[in-house]
């Protein structure tokens, strides 16, 4: 693993820890996350409650772990959906050019002009707040980003001589897109995805903070933050911990994205 960028290491480590916590929470958590025990509230850290308990006597570590799972799942599904759809549209636009491209890009511009958070709020208001709607809202916000990125890079790839060579080889548009364009823009799209992933975590936190995200008893970092906000004077750790988790995750994904971009940068290879 020589010569990997530092950011990749740190980012990978942060994301790894969070992802591990999320995975572990699938099979084991210190306590049951939905169990409410008001008599046990505001316990300090102990052997039983490693990070203490919150205002309803729930184990904070458990909440954070399951919160990680929820945040990551939402971000993953949302960015995955948005990325897949956006990239598909971008590839289409990049391949067809002309009117198709014009229309797709105009649509992307159009959704850019629509304040993202506002859209999420409206969606949540229309269909009721839920896990699924948070996913859809975030995915939707992500589509135009991926459209732009993938269309621009696809257009560049289509200019390359090897695509001309493929056309001379009687390959069709679909085959060229599959065999040449997609693999060559994959790195850029993946980098974009990691960065958007960080953004998705932030939006999910903001949505949950506003009560529009994951619904109780499923914990979410954003909601933990908003619920514990008034407890800042009583139990600051209840605000600080989920905040730190968000920061660590976003930081982790951003660093990972940066590292991957460095890694994918062809100049890096040349300079070696």
């Amino acid at each position, binding site marked *: 693993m020589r010569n990997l960028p530092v950011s990749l290491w740190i980012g990978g480590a942060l994301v790894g820890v969070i992802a591990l916590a999320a995975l572990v929470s699938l099979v084991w958590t210190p306590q049951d996350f939905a169990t409410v025990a008001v008599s046990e509230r505001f316990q300090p850290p102990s052997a039983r409650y490693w990070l203490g308990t919150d205002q309803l006597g729930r184990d904070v570590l458990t909440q954070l772990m399951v919160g990680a799972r929820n945040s990551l799942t939402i971000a993953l599904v949302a960015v995955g959906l948005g990325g897949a759809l956006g990239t598909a549209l971008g590839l289409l636009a990049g391949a067809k050019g002309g009117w198709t491209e014009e229309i797709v890009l105009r649509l992307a511009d159009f959704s850019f002009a629509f*304040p993202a*958070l*506002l859209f999420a709020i409206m969606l949540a*208001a229309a269909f009721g707040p839920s896990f699924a709607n948070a996913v859809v809202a975030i995915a939707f916000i992500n589509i135009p980003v991926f459209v732009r990125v993938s269309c621009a890079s696809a257009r560049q790839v289509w200019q390359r001589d090897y695509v001309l060579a493929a056309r001379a080889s009687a390959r069709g548009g679909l085959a060229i897109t599959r065999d040449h364009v997609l693999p060559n823009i994959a790195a850029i799209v993946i980098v974009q995805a990691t960065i958007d992933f*960080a953004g998705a975590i932030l939006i999910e936190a903001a949505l949950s903070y506003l009560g529009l995200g994951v619904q109780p008893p499923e914990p979410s970092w954003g909601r933990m933050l908003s619920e514990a906000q008034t407890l*800042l004077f009583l139990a600051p750790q209840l605000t600080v911990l989920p905040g730190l988790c968000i920061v660590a995750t976003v930081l982790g994904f*951003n660093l990972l994205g940066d590292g991957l971009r460095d890694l994918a940068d062809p100049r890096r290879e040349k300079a070696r």
Partner: protein
Amino acid sequence: MPFLLRRLAGLVATLTGISLVVFAVMNVLPGDPALTILGLDSTEDARAALSAQLGLDQPVWARYLDWLGGILQSDFGTSYAYRVPVTELILERLPLTLTLGLLASILTIALATALGVFAAARHGKAGDWVTMILSQLGIAIPAFWLSILLVLLFAVTLRVLPSGGFPGWAEPLEALKSLVLPVTALVLVQASVLARVTRASVLEVAKLDYARTARALGLSPRRVMWGHVLPNALVPMVTVAGMQLAGLITGTIVIENVFFLPGLGRLMFQAINNRDLYTVQALVLLFASIVVIVNFLVDMIYLLIDPRLREGRS
């Protein structure tokens, strides 16, 4: 210039599209303005009467056309909830949000440029690392959380700044003071993003041949940086700064709520909660126009920066 005309047509098309979407969404949203206004104890006939008063008994398309007709006479409708012309509502709050946005934008750009250039100039050294670590943190911290921490420190503990609210423009000093924390919360996050773009873009340009030419002609590093590298690094910076404005608008919605500032962002929130269609409509259109206009300005700035683009070549 076909360019201007095309952009104008694009703006109108975008805004029409957005107005349609907003109208449709607001109609799909569960919630009856009359019920929201009159509350749980209201009687059906009172609600019916209010609905009629507000024109809500008309079909959607009729209301849309009506509204569109109003727009052409620069009448943006009357707020259901506030019972005053939407224009008045918006004009009332525009100065605050505008000040907030402009201050934040200017400071963001100034801070980001300074930090980005500083980091790039110290590429790979301690100064670069510290700046970049701080900016990574800046990006990662949710603005609302940062706001809470700022208030706790400066308003509650140190008591040097107000915890929120806005005293009005009558006392300019107090007004500015009340904007310090919100602007800080906005700027720290946005400037972090832009500083990174600045740094990357500056480093990119510094590698190019003409930067080398400038150095080969014996120019000092500072002169090369400010005279040759930075101007050329501006294009991506301006692009990102332009996109950030959209983020800034979303940011003000959150920040104004956290600091209970009577600005457009908060009005937007309340308007959605009140199902105040025309206010939402006008605000979304305003925000969207700002985004589109800023994009347009960004393109103009490209032209200003880059003589190659001025000649209508791609």
